[in-house]
C-alpha cells in the first residue's frame, strides 16, 4: 500500500507495480487505515513524509502499534535527514526511498521488505507454538503432582492405615476405593498417550465404514450399559463413501460415549444413551445424547480445556474433551454442545469427508 497526498504519485506507483503485486493506494491517513483494517494481509506500507494532516513518520509510529505486521518504508523528497534517522533508530521504519524514486530501488526495497516480513511471520508462528507448548508443559507439571502423585500417595496411605484395621469389611471397602483410584491413574496414562499421539501424529486418511466403527464401540459399551442399567441405542445411516482418519474418529466417538455413560444420573430410573451418525453430501454428523446430570451453562465454555473438570462425579481426567477438540481441529470438524442441568447433554460432531 502507498499513502501520498498527491494523486499523481499514487498513479505512478500503481502503474509501476500493479503487474507484479496487489497494490492499494490511499490519498490520506484515514483511507490508509481503512485499507489496513480491511486487508490484514498487506505486507508492505509505503508512505510519503510530507502530508497535510500527519507526517509519514507520525503515521508509521501510530500504525506500528495498531497494525504491527506490515513492513514500513518512507518515501521522501525532502532532506529531513534528522527526523528520518530518528525514525529508523526508533524502529518505526524499515528503510527509506528518495523521491522521485528509481524503479529498481522500489523493487529491491519490496523484495527485501518481503523477506523481512516472511521471516518475521514465521518467527511469530513458531513463537506462538512454543508459547503454547510451554503453557501445556506447565499444566502438565502441575497436573502430574495431582493426577499421578495423588493416587500413589493415597495408595501408600491406605496401606499404612490398613495395618491397624481388623474389620474385614472395612478392608474390603478400602480395597474397592484403592481399585477405583488405580483405575483413574490407569485412565490418565492412556489419555496422556492419546494426547501425545494427537500432538505429534500424522493423519492417515482412509475410507471410513461407520457401521464397523459403531459395532466395535457397541461391543465395548453394551457391557457397561447392561451393568449400569442404561438403555443404549445406536444408529448408522451411511450410503456414501466417507474419507477421514479412522483412529481419530474412533477416539472421538469413544470419548463422547464414555462421557455419556460416565455422567449418568444414578438417581434416575430411566437412563439412556443414544448415538447416531448420518453421512450426507460429504459430511458426517455424529450425535451422542445422554440422559445424564447435564453441564452447568457457565461451565460449557470450559469443558474443552485441558484438565478442566466440571463435576466431582466419577473419574474424569480432564483430558477427554480436550483430545476430542484437538482431533476435530486436525480433521477440520467442529462440535456443538446442548445441555440441560439434570436432564442430559447432547454432543453433535460435524466432520467433512477429506
Amino acid at each position, binding site marked *: 500500500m502507498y499513502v501520498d497526498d498527491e494523486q499523481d504519485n499514487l498513479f505512478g506507483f500503481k502503474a509501476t507495480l500493479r503487474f507484479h503485486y496487489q497494490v492499494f493506494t490511499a490519498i490520506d491517513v484515514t483511507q490508509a487505515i481503512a485499507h489496513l483494517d480491511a486487508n490484514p494481509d498487506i505486507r508492505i506500507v509505503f508512505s510519503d513524509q510530507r502530508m497535510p494532516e500527519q507526517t509519514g513518520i507520525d503515521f508509521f509510529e501510530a500504525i506500528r502499534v495498531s497494525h504491527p505486521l506490515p513492513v514500513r518504508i518512507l518515501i521522501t523528497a525532502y532532506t529531513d535527514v534528522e527526523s528520518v534517522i530518528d525514525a529508523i533508530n526508533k524502529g518505526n521504519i524499515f528503510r527509506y526511498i528518495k523521491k522521485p524514486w528509481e524503479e529498481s530501488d522500489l523493487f529491491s526495497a519490496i523484495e527485501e521488505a518481503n523477506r523481512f516480513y516472511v521471516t518475521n511471520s514465521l518467527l511469530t508462528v513458531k513463537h506462538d507454538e512454543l508459547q503454547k507448548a510451554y503453557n501445556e508443559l506447565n499444566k502438565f507439571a*502441575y497436573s502430574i*503432582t*495431582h493426577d499421578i*502423585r*495423588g*493416587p500413589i*500417595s*493415597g*495408595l501408600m*496411605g*491406605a496401606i*499404612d*492405615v490398613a495395618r*491397624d*484395621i481388623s474389620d474385614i469389611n*472395612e478392608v474390603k*471397602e*478400602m480395597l474397592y*476405593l*484403592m481399585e*477405583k*483410584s488405580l483405575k483413574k491413574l490407569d485412565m490418565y496414562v492412556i489419555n496422556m498417550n492419546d494426547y501425545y499421539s494427537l500432538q505429534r501424529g500424522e493423519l492417515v486418511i482412509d475410507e471410513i465404514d461407520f457401521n464397523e466403527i459403531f459395532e466395535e464401540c457397541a461391543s465395548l459399551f453394551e457391557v457397561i450399559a447392561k451393568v449400569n442399567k442404561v438403555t443404549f441405542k445406536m444408529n448408522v445411516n451411511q450410503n456414501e463413501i466417507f474419507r477421514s482418519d479412522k483412529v481419530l474418529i474412533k477416539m472421538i466417538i469413544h470419548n463422547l460415549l464414555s462421557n455419556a455413560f460416565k455422567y449418568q444420573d444414578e438417581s434416575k430410573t430411566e437412563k439412556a444413551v443414544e448415538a447416531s451418525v448420518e453421512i450426507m453430501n460429504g459430511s458426517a454428523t455424529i450425535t451422542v445424547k445422554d440422559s445424564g446430570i447435564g453441564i452447568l451453562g457457565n*461451565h460449557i465454555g470450559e469443558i474443552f480445556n485441558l484438565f478442566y*473438570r*466440571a*463435576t*466431582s462425579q466419577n473419574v*474424569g481426567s480432564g483430558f477427554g474433551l480436550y483430545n476430542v477438540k484437538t482431533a476435530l481441529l486436525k480433521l477440520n470438524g467442529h462440535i456443538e454442545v446442548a445441555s440441560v442441568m439434570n436432564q442430559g447433554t447432547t454432543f453433535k460432531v460435524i466432520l467433512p469427508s477429506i
Partner: protein
Amino acid sequence: MNLAFIIIDDSELDCFIAKKIIQQNDKSTKVATFTDAISALRQINDNTDIHSNLLTIILLDLRLPIMSGFEFVEEFERLPVNVRSKYVIYVLSSSMNKNDKSRVDSNENIIKMLDKPLTKTSFDVIMSEVGARKI
C-alpha cells in the same frame, strides 16, 4: 474429644484414609467428608447438623473440580466472624507447586499445608497445634 472434622477431597480414598486416621485416635470424633467444596460450604453456611458448638478442623484439598480449594477459602472469608471462628483450615495436598505453597503461607485463614493423604504423624501435628484450642 472437643473437636470435629470436615474433609474436602475429591478422592474418596483419601477421604476414607483421613477419616480412619482421625477415628483411630478417638472413635467418637465427628467427621464429615465432602468430595466437592460447594456442598461443604453450603453445610458450613447452614451450619445445621454440623457439630454446632465444636471447634471444627477443615482438611482441604486444593485441586478440586468446579470450586478449587483456594476459591473455597475466598468464599469462607466472606462468612460472618462468629461462623468463621468455629473453624480452622489446614490444606492437605499432593501439590509440590511453589505458587500453591506460597499462596497457602500468605493466607492468614490457612494454618499450613500438609502432604496428602493424612498420616498419623501429620494428624499429631494438627492435634498439638489446635487440640488445646477452644472456640
